[in-house]
């Protein structure tokens, strides 16, 4: 219990402080520092799991963190720390280059980011599906102000869609949770439980029709939040209208939360019936999402929406990994995607800020304007698209190999084609941004510092691709 | 059904029925108007004013438009005749006016008799050739078109459930397949009451006191009638009010626990009291609500139809 409190101390204190500190420049540095401190704290709390001494830590009934969960907490905190470090630069640059944001808005931004971090951390601590639902809905509510940051018509529209679509989607996940609970009450468990660890143990005795219904609703509900194909409409809007650090967090950590919900629900149904037909739906939806996203990527006109659709594509891959029942691959895909995509959103944020437009047709000649940024953008987009030495390539490779083992031949072929299409699409779009004549009104502020965090992230995904031994997983 | 042979029973029944047919309709209207007046902080006309009005009208000389044909003069008679016939058929009080088995109170017969009365009223309104009669008739027919399905469905779902289209059997107080179907009775009652508000040209659909051409519906149709002709039309309308309110009240009465209503006297009192209390309720509505805009009326009638659909669903499922 004490450790649980400890995990939330730093963000809650920082959230409070950022509302009261007058100078937002100080707040920005404080928040970044606090996030890195939080990362250190998280590592120290979760050390027994990370070193392999224990498989799970139980904080309270319904709050158990397992190996996968603890890796995800680390990733989330890392992403937020990177985004906040960059945010400090980003808002300073905005003050120099363009119209500075109001102090009150920045204060709210920093406070909300800390609440958002707490909500996301608690998602991975949940063993109870009920708490999980509450935590995921909390991430929606706490990230809505981040999307509405710009306070203009487009931001308003994006926020409204985000809030309504996700709330309704998540409501259906709640329905699924209710069904799973009802299934548990018609089993050996008697009075019923929502704790995944208990559900898995007595999975065979659960009322299967109810469980199946519950799982399908959870998949659709959390799938809406994760942006799987027919339910993704809110995602490009929200990701493109939020300010760059917020987009990075939405894409790099929020999506993982929703996918973690699908993963939790899927562990129960696979424990009940390993070859349940309903479970095949997951892999199919994942593959469909990849295919659909690759088509959207080709015909993009907006830099940030391009990355948003690339996120949808990666979500499809992660859902596919869940559909194969492979937790490690799910995490590795999430890890590589988060690192590369955060880097991309941050560097794109700089480019958009300097050029004053998000339109792909008006962005060109980055190499001439700012070689550092061009390099970072090129490397990061290669990493996201899944070029060989990077981590994404390795996970995609093992994912496809594994899917052949599960006899998903058609899906594997579809994904293969879609990945190739989106690879070409992303490279073509970034190529146009990087090459060509430079823009005369391109305002670069502190070029090297701006590229620092993105470069760091790209380097780490490269390291993962080179160092991690995929065969052993 | 066997024909009742107890003469005393028949006399008691028929006598009470006749008395309530003569007294209740104008009295209901009187009470309604009085209550409305009290709500508006007026003293209002005496309760028996409708009787006096009718007496006054019957003494007056009649003025008939020179364009009017015989239809205009005969329509109120037909209207009144149909209403009197309906009062025997519709189980609007808990009394059986005529012994069972002599005539079947088929629900479709009742609905088409109501239609017949409306048909002649509308013809008479068109007959004089005045603009008011014309638009009143057109509005009346539009409303009837919308509200008739609701009435039909409400009655039909009771009939479907009871397995007969004879309303005197549906509404009888003997044990039938409808006994204890409180939900069905209640919803059907709500549906019938909402549609009666429209049928009787009461407030949300039509303002019975207005003479403004923008808002009149029923009043516009009988604007040309005078003296005895008007009196007949009014009596017909009064009876219709009592009949339809009585019919909806009978539905609500079936929601009450049956042991309360096993007694003949209790049923008679409850029926009379029910009609009067519905009249009071209408007075309350008319004091609080305003007349709906003509274009909003379908929305209101939709609620009656929805009630009918609900009760139909229940009739089919339970």
């Amino acid at each position, binding site marked *: 219990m004490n450790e649980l409190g400890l995990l939330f101390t730093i963000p809650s204190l920082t959230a409070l402080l950022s509302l009261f500190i007058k100078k937002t420049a100080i707040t920005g540095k404080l928040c970044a520092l606090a996030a890195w401190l939080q990362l250190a704290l998280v590592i120290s709390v979760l050390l027994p799991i990370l070193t392999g001494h224990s498989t799970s830590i139980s904080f309270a009934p319904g709050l158990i963190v397992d190996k996968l969960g603890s890796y995800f907490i680390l990733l989330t905190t890392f992403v937020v720390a990177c985004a906040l470090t960059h945010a400090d630069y980003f808002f300073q640059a905005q003050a120099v280059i363009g119209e500075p944001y109001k102090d009150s808005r920045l204060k709210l931004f920093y406070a909300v980011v800390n609440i958002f971090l707490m909500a996301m951390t608690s998602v991975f601590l949940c063993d109870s599906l009920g708490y999980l639902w509450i935590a995921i809905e909390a991430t929606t509510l706490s990230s809505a102000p981040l999307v509405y940051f710009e306070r203009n018509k487009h931001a308003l529209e994006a926020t*409204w869609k985000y809030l309504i679509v996700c709330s309704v989607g998540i409501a259906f996940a709640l329905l699924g949770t209710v069904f799973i609970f009802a299934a548990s009450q018609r089993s050996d468990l008697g009075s019923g439980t929502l704790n995944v660890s208990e559900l898995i143990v007595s999975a065979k005795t659960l009322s299967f029709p109810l469980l199946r219904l519950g799982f399908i609703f959870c998949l659709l509900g959390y799938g809406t939040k994760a942006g799987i194909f027919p339910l993704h409409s809110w995602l490009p809007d929200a990701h493109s209208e939020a300010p760059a650090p917020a987009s990075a967090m939405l894409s790099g950590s929020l999506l993982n939360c929703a996918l973690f919900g699908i993963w939790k629900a899927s562990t129960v149904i696979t424990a009940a019936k390993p070859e349940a037909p309903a479970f095949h739906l997951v892999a199919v939806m994942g593959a469909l999402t990849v295919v659909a996203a690759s088509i959207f990527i080709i015909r993009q006109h907006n830099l940030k929406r391009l990355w948003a659709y690339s996120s949808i594509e990666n979500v499809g891959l992660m859902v596919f990994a869940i559909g194969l029942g492979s937790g490690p691959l799910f995490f590795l895909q999430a890890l590589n995607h988060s690192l590369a995509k955060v880097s991309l959103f941050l560097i794109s944020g700089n480019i958009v800020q300097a050029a004053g437009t998000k339109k792909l047709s008006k962005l060109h000649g980055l190499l001439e304007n700012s070689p550092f940024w061009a390099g970072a953008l090129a490397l990061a987009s290669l990493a996201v698209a899944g070029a060989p030495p990077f981590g994404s390539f390795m996970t995609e490779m093992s994912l496809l190999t594994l899917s052949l083992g599960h006899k998903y031949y058609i899906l594997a072929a579809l994904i293969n084609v879609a990945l190739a299409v989106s690879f070409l699409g992303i490279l073509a779009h970034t190529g146009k941004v990087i090459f060509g004549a430079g823009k005369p009104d391109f305002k670069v502020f502190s070029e090297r510092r701006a590229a620092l965090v993105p470069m760091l992230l790209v380097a780490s995904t490269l390291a993962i691709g080179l160092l991690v031994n995929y065969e052993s997983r | 059904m066997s024909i009742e042979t107890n003469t005393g029973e028949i006399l008691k029944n028929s006598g009470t029925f006749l008395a309530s047919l003569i007294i209740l309709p104008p009295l209901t209207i009187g009470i309604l108007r009085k209550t409305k007046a009290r709500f508006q902080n007026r003293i209002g006309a005496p309760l028996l004013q409708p009787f006096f009005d009718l007496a006054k009208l019957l003494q007056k000389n009649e003025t008939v438009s020179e364009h009017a044909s015989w239809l205009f003069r005969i329509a109120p008679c037909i209207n009144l005749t149909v209403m009197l016939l309906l009062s025997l058929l519709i189980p609007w009080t808990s009394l059986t006016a005529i012994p069972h088995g002599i005539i079947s109170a088929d629900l479709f017969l009742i609905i088409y008799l109501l239609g017949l009365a409306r048909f002649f009223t509308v013809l008479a309104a068109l007959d004089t050739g005045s603009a008011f009669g014309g638009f009143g008739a057109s509005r009346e027919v539009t409303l009837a078109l919308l509200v008739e399905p609701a009435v039909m469905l409400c009655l039909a779902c009771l009939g479907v459930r009871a397995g007969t289209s004879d309303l005197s059997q549906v509404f009888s107080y003997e044990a039938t397949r409808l006994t204890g179907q*409180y939900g069905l009775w209640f919803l059907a009652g709500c549906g019938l009451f909402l549609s009666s508000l429209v049928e009787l040209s009461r407030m949300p659909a039509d303002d019975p006191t207005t003479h403004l051409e923008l808002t009149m519906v029923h009043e516009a149709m009988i604007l040309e009638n005078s003296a005895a002709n008007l009196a007949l039309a009014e009596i017909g309308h009064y009876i219709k009010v009592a009949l339809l309110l009585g019919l909806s009240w009978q539905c609500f009465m079936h929601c009450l626990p049956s042991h309360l209503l096993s007694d003949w006297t209790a049923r008679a009192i409850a029926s009379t009291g029910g009609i009067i209390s519905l009249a009071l309720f209408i007075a309350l509505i008319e004091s609080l609500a305003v007349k709906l805009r003509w274009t909003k009326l379908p929305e209101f009638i939709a609620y009656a139809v929805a009630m009918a659909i609900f009760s139909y669903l229940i009739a089919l499922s339970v």
Partner: protein
Amino acid sequence: MQLSTFEALAMLSAVLGILILGTTLLRTNLSFYRFHTLAIVALTVWIGHITKEAHLYIVAAAVLLVKVLFIPSFLGWVMKKAEVGSDKQAFIAAPLSMHLGAIMLGVSYLLSSRIPGLEGVHQEGSHLGSTAAMSILFTGVLLMLTRRAALSQILGFLVIENGIYLFAVTQTHGMPMLVEMGLLLEVLVGVMISGLLLFNIKKSFEHIDVSQLTDLKD
């Protein structure tokens, strides 16, 4: 077969829910929502009475406080401040959508008797509880699909949430209390955030017609 109190209350809440669809006057919508939720509260209390689960009373009281008393009043206040009265030009005319809702009630009756595992736990063999819950879900979805005003969207979400709550109450012996309370808090915060957003939509667009929010597309 007679309707038991449980079934009657469940049906009442479903019917009151469907009546929300019947008008485009937002104030009337809100009062129907209030009564509809009140019926659900009564049902919760009744189930608490049958099953002797004391925590259901607490949940019922909390729902009463938040969803019957606070949220409709808050939305009424938002409505007044934003100066919107009715939801003009719904995609499907209100009467028609109400009749659709009534038909969906019939459909949910058929569905809930076909889908295995949906017979309620409190009433032997009766699936009217899940019928009502499913019909309320459909009502909420209809409300969100056929209406254009932002406030109706919020209301639709609330109705959907009520349907899910009814599922939880009728299909289980009560969800864990902490979960119920957390859920209620989320709804409360969600409604307040979207209420505030609604102000801003009114301020920047001068209408609250969400079907006209189509600037963002590919």
